[in-house]
């Protein structure tokens, strides 16, 4: 119908001079310089004490970066990292002592065992969330001494595992200096791995998980799989660190893996900033140089950790690296004057391509919440190529109906079908993958992502890529990322918010976030698009743009269901309208018929309101 409508052009990034593009690499430069300095450190001959401090910081930081991934990014506070650290250390120690294996073999085995422990410790977390997961993973740490005692012969019990031989790499026995390089290079590689993971599509999918299971499922992301991924990935660096730790003193004992270690890791994470990668290094360094190294003040160390946790938890939501980051940002703003983004003025055509719509059939659906009959034998048909409006007063059951279609509620009776397939009894993420995308009445936008990234999260499952290609930045991953950005930019432009592409999405005004939700829903190339009050909070022009886009989407084949209180907009946009009142369908028909229907005027608009001309 209104295909190829005119839309504003993409503005430039706002960076005028090409040399300023180098600034894009500013955050990579700092760690690279740090890594080089660490590797060159032995040249200065600082003595064994300093080198040992660096080694301890490196191992410590590896565990903390895993904690940051599961907690800071994925929002799952799993405190079992010490158990994985211990698993890595003991696996490595036993293999080295009893089987004299090569360093590469023992490191690999340690990481593998830690991943298995991470998997096991995550099992309660699949059912519980929040603090309950934290506590049950905590218990796993409490069990360590018992397990060591049970396997006294292999682990040395409470006395510890002594006389672990020096590491052997490819038949060559390593001296302490060579081992320093093994530790630092492993840590650098570990951090590179995590940095790439966190800024990849997977990192953003983890942010979606943090926002909540409902959003994740609506994007087709299996919460179950995503949580397991987070736990297992978080375990890998802990296992590596444990293995490295086993060789350090040729001795490991249960007291290295106790309650205070858990607290120290947590404190380092909070102090450095939990939602960061390099903050793990900062926090670990501060704790290692401070309370952990001084035996003289050991009895005060618990007090220091405690104070860090309270102060850090209350005041430093981004940790010290967050504070440093915002200082740097304001400094660079003062130093480099960026041109403000030009307002959208030029216009161009945006093609969104065809959608493969599927008809939605809702037949005789009933749903009761306690004493409230939210829906009472409601039947609705939505056809591809059409916009189906759903209106009714607050509490009339509109959103309940959408939630039933999406699988968030279980229906009491009736049928819901998309094309030939029944959606009843399917889990929400399965329904989303079947081609159902939706927007939420209250926008659900994860913090820390820009608009492009938010829109692209709905392509995570549809155009899936593995973890390894993402970490190694293989061409297959880059292709998907390019596809993500291209598609996301096109959608943002189609909604007239292309100039906001690189802005932090969660801090945008309500109306803009609603449009962003629509763009995200469209990014799934849905066969059924469910829009829950997308127009409230928008100004007149924005409503007009949105209305055109909805018509455009339907005209290109999608099935669109529109819930809206803006009566004129629904009349203008929808081909077929259903009216709900207290869970019952009271009218249906074309816009004209609905506007003139006396029951609708009576119930929904109030008798005295004049129908719009």
């Amino acid at each position, binding site marked *: 119908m209104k295909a190829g409508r005119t839309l504003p052009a993409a503005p430039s990034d706002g960076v005028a001079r090409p040399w300023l593009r180098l600034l894009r690499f500013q955050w990579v430069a700092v760690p690279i310089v740090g890594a080089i300095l660490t590797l060159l450190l032995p040249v200065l001959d600082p003595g064994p004490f300093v080198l040992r401090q660096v080694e301890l910081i490196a191992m410590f930081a590896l565990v903390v970066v895993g904690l940051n991934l599961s907690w800071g990014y994925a929002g799952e*506070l799993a405190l079992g990292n010490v158990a994985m650290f211990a698993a890595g250390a003991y696996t490595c120690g036993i293999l080295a002592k009893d089987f004299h294996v090569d360093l590469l073999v023992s490191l690999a085995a340690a990481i593998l065992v830690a991943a298995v422990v991470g998997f096991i410790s995550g*099992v*309660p977390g699949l*059912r*519980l969330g*929040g*603090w*309950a997961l*934290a*506590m*049950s993973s*905590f*218990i*796993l740490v*409490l*069990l360590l001494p*018992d*397990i060591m*005692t*049970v396997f006294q012969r292999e682990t040395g019990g409470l006395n510890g595992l002594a006389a672990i031989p020096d590491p052997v790499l490819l038949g060559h026995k390593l001296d302490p200096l060579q081992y320093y390089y093994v530790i630092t290079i492993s840590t650098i590689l570990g951090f590179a791995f995590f940095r790439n993971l966190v800024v990849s599509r997977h990192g953003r999918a983890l942010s979606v998980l943090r926002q909540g*299971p*409902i959003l994740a499922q609506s994007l087709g992301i299996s919460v179950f799989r995503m949580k397991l991924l987070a736990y297992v990935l978080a375990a890998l660096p802990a296992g590596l660190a444990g293995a490295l730790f086993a060789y350090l003193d040729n001795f490991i004992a249960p007291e290295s893996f106790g*309650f205070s270690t858990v*607290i120290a890791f*947590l*404190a380092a994470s*909070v102090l450095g900033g939990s939602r960061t990668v390099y903050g793990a290094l900062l926090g670990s360094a501060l704790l290692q140089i401070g309370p952990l190294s001084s035996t003289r003040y050991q*009895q*005060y*160390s*618990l*007090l220091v*950790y*405690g*104070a*860090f*946790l*309270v102060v*850090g*938890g*209350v*005041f430093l*939501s981004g940790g010290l690296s967050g504070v440093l980051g915002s200082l740097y940002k304001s400094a660079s703003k003062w130093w480099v004057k960026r041109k403000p983004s030009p307002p959208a003025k030029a216009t161009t055509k945006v093609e969104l391509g065809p959608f493969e719509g599927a008809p939605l059939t809702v037949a005789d659906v009933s749903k009761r*919440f306690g004493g409230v009959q939210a829906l009472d034998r409601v039947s609705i048909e939505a056809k591809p190529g059409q916009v189906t409006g759903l209106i009714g007063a607050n509490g009339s059951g509109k*959103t309940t109906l*959408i*939630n039933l279609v*999406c699988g*968030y*509620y*279980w229906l009491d009776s009736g049928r819901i079908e998309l094309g030939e397939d029944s959606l009843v009894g399917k889990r929400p993420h399965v329904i989303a993958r079947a081609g159902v995308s939706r927007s*939420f*009445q209250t926008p659900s936008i994860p913090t820390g992502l820009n608009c492009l990234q938010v829109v692209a999260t709905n392509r995570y499952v549809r155009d899936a890529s593995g973890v390894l290609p993402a970490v190694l930045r293989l061409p297959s991953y880059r292709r998907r990322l390019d596809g993500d950005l291209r598609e996301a930019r096109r959608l943002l432009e189609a909604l007239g918010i292309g100039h906001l592409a690189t802005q932090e999405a969660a801090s945008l005004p309500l109306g803009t976030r609603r449009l962003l939700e629509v763009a995200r829903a469209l990014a799934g190339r849905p066969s059924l698009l469910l829009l829950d009050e997308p127009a409230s909070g928008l100004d007149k022009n924005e409503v007009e743009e949105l209305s055109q886009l909805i018509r455009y989407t339907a005209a290109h084949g999608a099935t669109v269901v529109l819930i809206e209180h803006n009566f004129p907009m629904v009349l203008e946009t929808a081909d077929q309208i259903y009216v709900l009142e207290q869970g019952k369908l009271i009218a249906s028909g074309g816009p004209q018929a609905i506007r003139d229907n006396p029951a609708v005027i009576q119930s929904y608009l109030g008798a005295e309101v004049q129908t719009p001309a």
Partner: protein
Amino acid sequence: MTTVWGALTVGAVYAIVAVGFNIVIISSATFNFAQPQLIMLGTFAAYLGAAQFHVPLLVTIGISLVLGGVIGLLIERTAIRLLPPGAHAELVTTVGVSVIIAGLVVLAFGNNPLSVPPVFGGERAMTLLGGRILPAELTILCIGLALPLVADILTTRTLVGLSSLATSEDKTAAVLRGINVGRLGWGSYAVAGALCMGLGPFVAPETYAYSALGDILVLKGFVAMVIGGQGSHRGALIGALAVGFVEAFTARYIGVNYQNVAVFGVLLIVLMIRPHGLFGERLERAV
């Protein structure tokens, strides 16, 4: 039968911890990791009262009640009220408070358990239903069994209790109904704090005054609460007794080293079968 009495006594202590957790959870939807440290402080109050200053038990309990309430208020003020909502940051901050309390006690009294004379009844075990039990154990058993039931009645029958339940279900709706949610929040911390520290002297003869007591109780109390279903006092009683029995019987028939493993196993099994605990309610998720 002696094992049964032992299980019941230990279970009773866990029940007190779990009820303390529940009171805070019901009223302010936060988990206070530092809660069991107040019982630990109560045991040290008993130690000081009985072994150092030789004051009557009632004085010790009175002081403990007041101090516990004050410390509870302090925890709420420093570690809870300032937090951004919905991030579960309270786990980090209350762990911090817990560590600080334990650290201070270690500084003042050292790492070793200090023995505390029984509240009353002497040190002679008596024979009850074919098992041996100390009078002090019998006391704590009765308290531990009665407390969850009393708490349950108070929660479901009084206005304060019902307001708390309403708040835990929907904070905004509770505010709109005229419930002072802020007062319930700090009130619950004060009540739970006073309760835990006030009962500490009764627990002391059984556990000794020991700086690491809080760290042990926090995990067992947590398991008891989760098994019973969070927010349910009746559930807390059942869960606590279950943990007590599993511990006692595993220690007796399999081995002391398997005690914690068995408790963790039971927790996993309960979570697999009933994720919301025995008395927890499953809510349908809303968008």
